[in-house]
């Protein structure tokens, strides 16, 4: 039974989703990534076999399963972790299936101002653990603290993650997108720390040393 069903809502976060999926699979977890977004940035980063349709079936690539189908009971029973990317598409019914939501934004007003629209005021979602990831942060007057305040969602301070813009991460992300490789070579320390922290949140039982070993194996391309 899936112990983690995580919804990613907001701007593109395909690189972190794919890195995380690979690390989890290296740790022996059965992972499913669902791309229900309008940009389909996750699926565009996965080489699609000819004759297979991700809308109708699951596609396996590098030991991680991908699909554009909606989450169903069979998936929940088969996988340990399900990571769903919604983008800015509203899928109220599906979000209620999740036990964690990660809102993803950057410093642009047109992105963070849409986040509150994606939250609902119904009781169900308030029960779901909520995180905020602010990506590509540049040192300027609109700080992450201001953005958190403007979004207005009640998120605990320890659940807010900030990733500063890093050229290496940006380039790595592009390379992974084109090569379909999701390698972690050349990744920044802050990105590594973020990913390991995410693994810890999803699986607190996994020893940090095991996570680091999985991370190292991925960097070596194993």
């Amino acid at each position, binding site marked *: 039974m899936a112990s983690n069903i995580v919804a990613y809502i907001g701007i593109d976060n395909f690189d972190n989703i794919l890195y995380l999926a690979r690390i989890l699979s290296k740790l022996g977890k059965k992972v499913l990534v669902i791309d229900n977004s309008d940009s389909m940035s996750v699926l565009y980063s996965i080489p*699609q*076999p*000819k004759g*297979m349709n991700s809308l109708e079936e699951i596609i396996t690539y*590098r030991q991680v399963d991908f699909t554009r189908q909606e989450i169903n009971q069979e998936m929940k029973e088969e996988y340990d972790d399900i990571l769903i990317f919604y983008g800015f598409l509203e899928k109220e019914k599906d979000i209620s299936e999740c036990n964690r939501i990660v809102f993803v934004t950057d410093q642009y007003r047109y992105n963070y101002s849409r986040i509150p629209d994606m939250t609902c005021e119904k009781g169900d979602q308030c029960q779901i653990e909520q995180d905020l990831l602010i990506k590509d942060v540049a040192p300027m007057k609109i700080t992450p603290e201001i953005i958190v305040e403007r979004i207005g969602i009640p998120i605990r301070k320890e659940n807010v993650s900030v990733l500063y813009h890093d050229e290496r991460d940006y380039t790595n992300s592009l390379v992974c997108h084109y090569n379909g490789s999701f390698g972690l070579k050349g990744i920044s320390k802050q990105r590594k720390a973020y990913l390991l922290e995410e693994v810890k949140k999803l699986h607190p039982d996994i020893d940090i040393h095991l996570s680091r070993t999985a991370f190292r194996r991925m960097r070596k391309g194993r």
Partner: protein
Amino acid sequence: MKIVYWSPMHGQTGTTSNMLASALYIGIQYRKKSLLMHTHFNLNNLEAPLVGSNAKNADSIGYFQDVGLDALVRTFKASRLGKEDLDNCCISIPNTLVSLLPGTTKHNQASYAYEMNMVILNLLRSMEELVDIIFIDVCSGKHPLSRKIIDASDIIVINLSQNTGVIENCFYNYPNLLHQKVFYLVGNYDDNSKYNIRNIRRHYRKYMKASNSGIIPYNTAFHDALCDGRVVDFIKDNLGCDKDDENQYFITKVREVAEKICKLAGLEIDIEESKNRDELST
């Protein structure tokens, strides 16, 4: 028990190397009295990886004198085939229960084809009484001799590649084959490809399941061993390799294929005992 290795296309799927890997594993690890042979007239490479040279190689004519398929056929035509007759025509692989029956050295293809057509089924029937398993590497495609042997076989191992054209060709052009007892084997396999075994099984779920399909990954050391004529040593050396060994993935997958083929064939093998043997031999 006759297990035939066939492919829809020549030179694309690594049929001979797949047969060498899986047959040697079954013969060595499960201690089954096995015989490896092929029915190609030319362009086959079964002997060299085992003994260093092919039967049709001009330099090795002396080595293969009085052994091989031609000698066996002569003996079979003269009298009932006995254990000694078969042993005399085969090359034993030392310290194993595996033997090699080298292929024909004839130069007249029509004569070879005619003779094979007349004797092969009865010959195989006689040989079956003397060994546990005969592994036969047959010509690819719609070769009439291959079809004859396939129809008489217990298991057909259909060798495929990750080339979608090869897979399509198999399912489209050979529908009759697919109703028999078949094992699909993808050789020189690369799991990083989008055409990985999981996706192939999903796409061809009508024919392929986990129980009747498997993969043998590409392995540099194995391919070098084929060229060096050291494939038996390679398999023996790596039977017990540990999880950090770079050949571990290869031998694990060969083991899985061997287990599945034996299960499909109804052959009794002690999987636990063989795993223990692996650990002891490290």
